[in-house]
C-alpha cells in the first residue's frame, strides 16, 4: 500500500520510493527513505496535506506526493 492511504494514528515502515528525480530526491533529503519507520500524525483541516512523524521530527506532504511512498503497515 502507499502512504496516502494510511489513516492518522497508524504506523508503517517505508518499503520503496516509486518517485525519481526531484520528488524522489526531495523525499530522501527530508529523511523519507526505505527501511524507516513513520507514524501518520494528522491530516490538515481540508484533508490535504498530511503530517507524519519521522525519527524525532515532523514533516508534512501532499497526498499526491505520498502516493509515491510504498509502505507496509506495522
Amino acid at each position, binding site marked *: 500500500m502507499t502512504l496516502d492511504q494510511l489513516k492518522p494514528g497508524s504506523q508503517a515502515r517505508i518499503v520503496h520510493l516509486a518517485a525519481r528525480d526531484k520528488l524522489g530526491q*526531495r523525499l*530522501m533529503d527530508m529523511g523519507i527513505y526505505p527501511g524507516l519507520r513513520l507514524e501518520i500524525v494528522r491530516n490538515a483541516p481540508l484533508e490535504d496535506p498530511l503530517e507524519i512523524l519521522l525519527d524525532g521530527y515532523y514533516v*508534512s506532504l501532499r497526498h499526491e506526493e505520498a502516493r509515491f511512498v510504498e509502505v507496509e503497515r506495522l
Partner: protein
Amino acid sequence: MTSKDRQAALAGQPNCGKSTVFNALTGASQHVANYPGVTVDKLVGSFRHNGTKVELVDLPGTYSLTSYSPEERVTRDFLLHEKPGLVINVADASNLQRNLYLTFQLLEMDVPLILNLNMIDVAKARGHEIDAEKLSRRLGVPVLPTNMKSGQGKKELLEAVSGTIARAEGRTSRIDYGDIESFIRELVDVLSAEPALADRYPLRWLAIKLLEEDREAQRLLVDGHPEADRVLADASAKRKAFEAAYGKTPEQHVAGRRYQAAADVAASAVGRSDLGKRPFSDRIDGIVCNRYLGPLILVGVVYLLYYLSIVQGYNLTNYTWPLLARLRTLVEALAPAPGFIEIPLIRAFALWFVDSINALLNYIPIFFILFGLIAILEDSGYMPRMAFIMDRLLSRYGLHGQSTLPMVLGGVYVGGCAVPAVMSCKGIPDERSRLATILIIPLLNCLAKVPLYVLLINIYFAQHKGLAMFFISTISLLFALPISKILTLTVLKDKETTPFIMEMPPYHLPTVRGVLVKAWRRVWLFLKKITTIVAAVAVVIFVLLQFPGLSAERLADYNGRKDQAVAAFMAAIQGTRFAGRIQEDHLMDLVGYWDEYKDAKMTAGNQAALDELKQRFEARDPDFYRIVQPGGDQEAQKANRAFKKLDRSRREILMAMRQERLNQSFLGRLGQAIEPVTRFAGFNWRVNVALLSALAAKESSVATLGALYQQEGSGQSLEQRMAEGEKGFSSLAALALMLFMVLYPPCVATTIAVKLQSGSARWMLFSMFYPMILGLAVATLVYSGGLALGLDGRQAMYAFYGLALAVTVAMGLIKNRAQTA
C-alpha cells in the same frame, strides 16, 4: 594567507538555529547582497577574534546539496567556486541523524569543516547525551556544542574558527558507499586523466554526482573536460549497469548509505534515553492544526496582524506625519516664492518631489510593525502551520500554502499593501506558485484603492453602501484566484515546480533582538531599493503632467483675469486708510501674511496660545492685522471683504490654470486620445486622466478627479459635483470604474518589488500590462453588456458577482498538471 582564507561560511539545514549563530557571531556588522541571477539573499557579516578578521557568509538553509532548488545550487556553487577557508556546519543537536546527512555531503566536497552542534539544550531536554569528542573522532573534524540563544559555547566556537581557519584541515572521514564504490572508483580514474579538472573540483564528489545524473555537475564537466561527451556516456552506462544489478538508482543507494552512516555515527556518539513523552510542539499542533480550531485560529492571527499593523500602524502615522510635514514646510521655505498666479517651476517640482517621497515614507511605521510581526510568525514556527492549513485550497488555483501570508498582506479583504506582500513572497519554495502569487497580489485591495471606492459608492450606491462595499472587497479575491489559475495553465506552465514536502519545526519563542534585526533589515531594504527608484519615477511623471504647459496666449488671458481681480480690490479699498499702505506690487506680502495667520490659528491649541499668536501677528504688522481681524472697525471690514474676494479669485485662477495645464499635458492628451476606446467601458476623458495620473500612486486618482471636476466658486463637495456635472455618468459606469480600479496596474513601488522578487524586468512589465488590458476588458463587458441588457449598476453588480463566483468555482475544479514521478 589570502583574504579567501579568512572567509568562512555558515551552512546547515533549515530550522537548525543558523541565523541565531550568525547574529551571535557577527553582531551588527551585516549586510545583504545578492547571488548573481537568483533572488536568494546573501547575508554577509564579519567578526574579529584574536586579531584575525573573519568574513562570514550565511548560506541558505538546505537539507541537501543537489541541484534541484536555487538555495541548494547557490550553496553548492559558493562552496565549489569561492572555496571559503572554512565552513561552519551548524547542526540541530536534537536531530543529529538527519543533520549529519548534510554534513557528509559537505565533507564530500572537500571543504575545511567545523561541526557546530547548536541547540544542545534542546537535545538534553529530549534526553540525548552527545559525546562531542567521540563524534569528532568519527567524523575527523572539530565538533563544538553550543546553545547560541544563551551564548553558551560561543567563545570555544570562536577559538576553533580562528584556530582552524589558519591551518590546513586534517583527515576527514568518508562514507563507504558499498556496492557502488567500484563504479565511483572507475569514474574517478577516468576523470583524473584530466589534471585541470582535479584542480578545480573534488573528483570523488564529481563522480558521484555524475552517476546521479546531476544536471549542474554535467555542466561543470562539459565546461572543464575536452572529451566531456565520452565521459558522460561512460557515466550513463555505469548508471544503467548499477540500476540493472541492484534494482535502485545510484541516488537512492547513495542517500540510503548516507543515512546509514549518519545513523551509525549518531548511535555511537549519542546516548538516548527516550523520555517517551509527546513533544510540546505536537501537543500545540493538536489545537493549532485541529480541523475546526485551526482555521479559526488562523483567522484570528490574520485579523491581529491586520489590526496591529494596518489599523494601529496607521494611527501611528499621525505622530510621524508631522515630521514629514515639517520637511515639506522646510522645502516650501527654501523654494522660490510663488507669485500671484505664477508658480515657479522649481517650486512646483520641489514640492511634487517631496510629496511623492513623503507618501512612501509615511508607510514606514506600518511597515516596521508589519515586518516585526512577520518576523515573529516566522521565528515562532507558525508559518508552516499556516501553509499546512491553507495549502489544499490555494493549490487548486496554482498557488501554494505559503501564499497565505502575502495574500493577507496584499489585502484579502480591504486595506493591505502590495509592497510588503510581494516582498514576503520570497519564502515560497515553488517557483511557479511564487510567480503566480507575485502576479496576483496587485489585484487585491490595497489601501490606496479604497478612497475611490468610497467616493463612488457614496454617490452611486448610497442606498446599498454595505452591500457595495462587500462586493468590492470580495470581488478582488474572485479575480485573483481564477487569474492565478489561468496564469498557471498558460504563461507559467513551464516554470519550475517543487514538491510541497515541508518540515513542521518545533515552536520557538522568538527573541526581541532577532525580531528587531529582521524588521529593521527589511525596512532598510525597502528604503534603499524602492524609495530611490520611486524618486526617479516621480521626476518622469512630473514632466508628463507639467509639459508642454500653457501657451503664451492662454497665460495672457489668465493675467488679464488677475489684473481685473486686483483692480477690483484696489478700487474697493480706495478711500480707506489702507489705500496708501498696500501697493499693487506687494500684494503677495498680504497674501502670505493671511495664509500664515490662518495656518497658525489652525494649530494653536488653546485660548492662551491663540492670544499669544494674535499679539505676535499684530506686532508684526498692525495694518495687515486689522484687515485679517477687523473686529468692529468699519473700514477694516470693508478691506477684509475685498481681500477675501481677491483671495478667492486668485485660488480660482490657480485652479483653472492647473486644470488646463493638466488637460494640455502629455498625460492629459493621452487621456483624451484614448476616449474612443474607453467610452465602451464608461470612462470619459476626465476619468482617463485621473486613472493615468494614478499610475504613480493610486491615492491621487481621487485628488485628480477633484481637480478636474472643480467648478468655480462652488462650495459643493466632490460627490455633488460629479453627480451633477456628469449626466452621462451612471451607476453602471461607476461600477465599471470600480472594477477597473480593482484590476488597476500596481504602483511604482510595487513594480520595483515585483522586479526584485521575480528577478526579471520582463515579469515586471507583464505585471503592469496584463491588469490594464484585463481591467479594460472587464469594465467594457460590464458597461457595454449592462447597457445592452438594460441593467442598472446594482443589477449589473449582482450579475457580475454571480459570474465571477461561477468562474472561480469552475477554475478550482480544473486539474493542475499531475505530479510526475
